């Protein structure tokens, strides 16, 4: 290749480079314009910015309000849940009291009444060892007429306590219930025939006719619950009335039979 043709080739190459550079500069210029125009188009007006800011503030405020309302409702819901548990418990207690009262007045048979009192003390209160004592008004002595738990409290079936003597004698004299309030397990060694866990007088108005002494609760029961005290109050009054009425009824039945036999005898002999 001659020197001349080399120079021409170089010139040609140089011209192409020049054209390409010019084209790049033009494109650059065009893009700058485009960018500038886009920036102008996209920039929001100050009033729009203000409107959006106020909307954000409003939404934030609303969000806060909703959050507060949610917390309040959540709290209310917790209250309702607690109230529901309370009502369930009250419902349970009322059912126990209703059934106990219904059963106590369902019969006039003395043995059946005593059996019902025992069922209530075992099944509803949860006692394993207990005694029902009646006051003999002639001797002023409290004597066991029914009991459970001879194996855990020996001689429970033959308790005899004078009115005014010891815890139970005092309960019968004053008509005030006696309870050991401390932890029952810790005190179990202190429980004896004349010092029960609980002693509940059986009262007709202020007149004590006997008492229920509880010595041991069932294994699964740690302590007396609120409904137990309600049941004790119910037993104090209703069991006393039921026992007293059934006793009177039995006595009147016996007297009636005697009179009837006597009348029969008179009729036959005449």
């Amino acid at each position: 290749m001659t020197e001349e043709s080399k120079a021409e080739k170089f010139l040609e190459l140089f011209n192409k480079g020049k054209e390409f550079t010019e084209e790049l500069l033009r494109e650059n210029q065009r893009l700058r314009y485009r960018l500038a125009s886009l920036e102008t188009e996209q920039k929001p007006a100050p009033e729009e910015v203000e409107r959006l800011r106020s909307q954000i503030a409003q939404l934030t405020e609303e969000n806060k309000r909703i959050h507060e309302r949610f917390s309040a409702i959540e709290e209310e819901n917790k209250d309702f849940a607690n109230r529901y548990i309370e009502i369930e418990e009250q419902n349970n207690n009322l059912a126990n009291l209703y059934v106990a009262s219904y059963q106590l007045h369902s019969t006039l048979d003395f043995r059946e009444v005593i059996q019902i009192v025992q069922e209530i003390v075992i099944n509803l209160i949860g006692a394993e060892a207990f005694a029902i004592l009646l006051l003999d008004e002639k001797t002023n002595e409290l004597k066991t007429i029914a009991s459970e738990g001879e194996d855990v409290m020996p001689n429970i079936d033959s308790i005899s306590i004078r009115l005014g003597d010891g815890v139970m004698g005092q309960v019968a004299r004053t008509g005030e219930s006696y309870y050991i309030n401390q932890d029952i397990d810790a005190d179990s060694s202190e429980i004896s025939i004349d010092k029960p866990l609980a002693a509940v007088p059986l009262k007709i108005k202020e007149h004590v006719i006997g008492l229920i002494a509880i010595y041991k609760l069932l294994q699964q029961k740690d302590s007396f619950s609120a409904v137990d005290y309600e049941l004790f109050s119910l037993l104090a009054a209703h069991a006393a009335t039921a026992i007293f009425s059934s006793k009177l009824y039995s006595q009147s039945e016996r007297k009636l039979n005697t009179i009837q036999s006597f009348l029969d005898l008179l009729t036959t002999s005449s």
Partner: protein
Amino acid sequence: MENANFLVVEDSPTMRQLISFSLKRFKNAKIIEAVDGVDALKKLSGPDKIDLILTDINMPVMDGLKLVSLVRQNAQLKNIPIIIITTEGAEEDRERGLALGANAYISKPIQSSHLIKTISELLAV
């Protein structure tokens, strides 16, 4: 669970009434009562299809554990859920009851809400 038939096996009228009282929470529940295991078996062979049995353990004539065992051996009755309700609260008593085939074991004194929850779970309502 609606229209369920419950068999309450208890020798104590007080407990029968208390359990029946709780079962009234189930709409249109029919409560059939039996005083011991033998009476329960008679009721189970009666016209009412029993959906769940609630039984005590200590009963005269036939106790609750024997009843559970016999029900589980009977082809027609073996799938009926059984809840034992008893004063026997020792762990070994619970294990014995469940081993014989009872589905749940509740110690007395019962809490109505606990009983309802247990029944609902067993009947998947």
